[in-house]
């Protein structure tokens, strides 16, 4: 029982200040403005190899989206101040999501490579 008390939820005891929330809000709105602005320009591409091209617009849009999501997760959802277990849970969800998308997309991409 005392172990439970020792392992108290850090969320409950670390109260994130409104100032932090405000700062994150501005960062998120700025990120939104940035990503919309970036979408107005054709950011070009990167020819990695023959048949393999990377277009920068989607990369930038997703990168900014990920930054925004990270801020929401860490600060609004208190993960920065949470236990290792919470962090591990979030990480495992993201990891599995990437496995689903990655391995499925890998099948589709490699179909074009023909039979050996």
């Amino acid at each position: 029982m005392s172990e439970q008390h020792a392992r108290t939820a850090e969320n409950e005891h670390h109260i994130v200040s409104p100032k932090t929330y405000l700062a994150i809000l501005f960062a998120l709105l700025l990120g939104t403005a940035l990503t919309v602005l970036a979408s107005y320009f054709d950011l070009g591409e990167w020819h990695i190899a023959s048949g393999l091209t990377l277009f920068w617009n989607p990369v930038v849009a997703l990168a900014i989206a990920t930054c925004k999501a990270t801020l929401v997760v860490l600060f609004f959802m208190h993960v920065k101040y949470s236990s290792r277990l919470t962090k591990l849970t979030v990480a495992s969800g993201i990891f599995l999501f990437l496995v689903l998308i990655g391995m499925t997309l890998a099948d589709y991409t490699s179909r074009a490579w023909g039979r050996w």
Partner: protein
Amino acid sequence: MSAATIVSLPDQATARIPKMNFITKENGLLSWLLTSDHKRIATLYLISITFFFFIGGALAGLIRLELLTPQTSLMAADTYNKVFSMHGLIMVFFFLVPSVPATIGNFVIPMMVGAKDLALPKINLLSWYLYVLGGLMMLYTMSTGGVDTGWTFTTPLSTHYLNTNVVSAALCVFVAGFSSILTGLNFIVTIHKMRCPGMTWFRLPLFVWSMYAASILMVLGTPVLAITLTLVGLERIFHIGVFDPAFGGDPLLFQHLFWFYSHPAVYIMILPGMAVISEVVSTFSRKRVFGYTAVAFSSVAIAVFAFFVWAHHMFIMGISNYSALIFSLLTMLVAVPSAIKIFNWAFTLYKGSITFETPLLYAFGFMGLFTIGGMTGVFLGSTGTDIHLTETYFIVAHFHFVMVGGMLMAFLAGIHFWWPKWTGRMYPEKISQFAAVVTFIGFNFTFFPQFILGTLGMPRRYAAYPPEFQALNVFSTAGATILGVGYLLPILYLTWSLKYGAIAGNNPWQATGLEWQTQSPPLTENFTEIPIMDHEAYDYEWLERQQEKEVASVG
């Protein structure tokens, strides 16, 4: 078999079922239907899944009857399609997936970790109601014409070319899936947050480790099935979607998403069975499980690897060669942790004091049949042989060996093992041993010929087959009849034991584990005081000292 037994019952002349227990605590239907007691919910589940098991079993009987003759004699081919589809759907989603977790798991996990209940008792009750709702929807689906897509809802057959109850079936599986998610979620939270003082992870019974692994799969995998079935429903209703080539969709996308859940699903089904076997093997050889850490970590390893191998169900469907190669390699890897567990159980038995009570008979059945089923899985994981064996009766035999020879036997082992704790009464040992043997014999007669049929080339899901396969099919159906008897007997004698069984006392098996330190049936709150765990798992010396202390204090 020798007459040796470890069963230790109280003096039957003076023994009584404890007056205050979770069954007698409150009376009335509502006290059961609105309960938050995990043990009552487990009992509700036990009744429900037994009901669906027998419906699924009746459908199996119809399949085997039809397959007595090479022609479609008993029913039209379309009807046959419905029969095996409903058999699969009911057995997978309404029996196997909730079998051990929702019944034995619900009953025993809080006691094993030393808690008064699961972390979220109301969610637990909700999961049962979702199961019942899904079950009612399944009954509705069956009575209004059934579904004939196979349990796998393959597109575009299911979204475009059939006029059976696809949406209704998809919806009922969706609902049952949520029942499963909530059960798994509850277990994960309980195991992390409700362990009693002193109960470190490595003092937990291995049952808990395997259930934990299965719960991770339930929570992470089932939502993908949910969205996939949603998309199937949308495509069917709105005639546009991503799975039908007629609209530009891809049937393989459906299969990727479907099997992303359905492969982990098979581990959701088998890990709880393995959980039971760990407990049973230890108790009936009076030895701690050999290689505790290996068994614990292999359970988690199975759960992790389970997510990386799904496309081995799609080798012939049009995935790329490179994909097939990777998935085949990973499939070989996933077999390893399962094998580790079999070895560890075998080494537990080695030099143990073995007695042949019914749970151990079922456990032996499990170990042998699961090994065969698992090894045939390796043939299927290898792309070269899979091309010939897939979609034949070899597959049918493979998954019935692991699911019926494996999981169902483990379920029966668990039911018999915890029956005295659950009801306060012992089942009759002789007839139950007989039923176990009958089941084992019936099972082998039913499903072993199907391996041969598969290698000879008999396709699965066909109502008619070439006449040269008839002999083996008749043999298989004969076995199914024996198997049916083997499954009917427990219903009869377990029900009988509720009134006439011997009083079990707290610990008839002299097992370790916190649940055996409580009365049978347990109190609603499990423990009058939260226990403090001060010994390792499977500590039979500790148990001996406890018993000496009891004798000393009584005498």
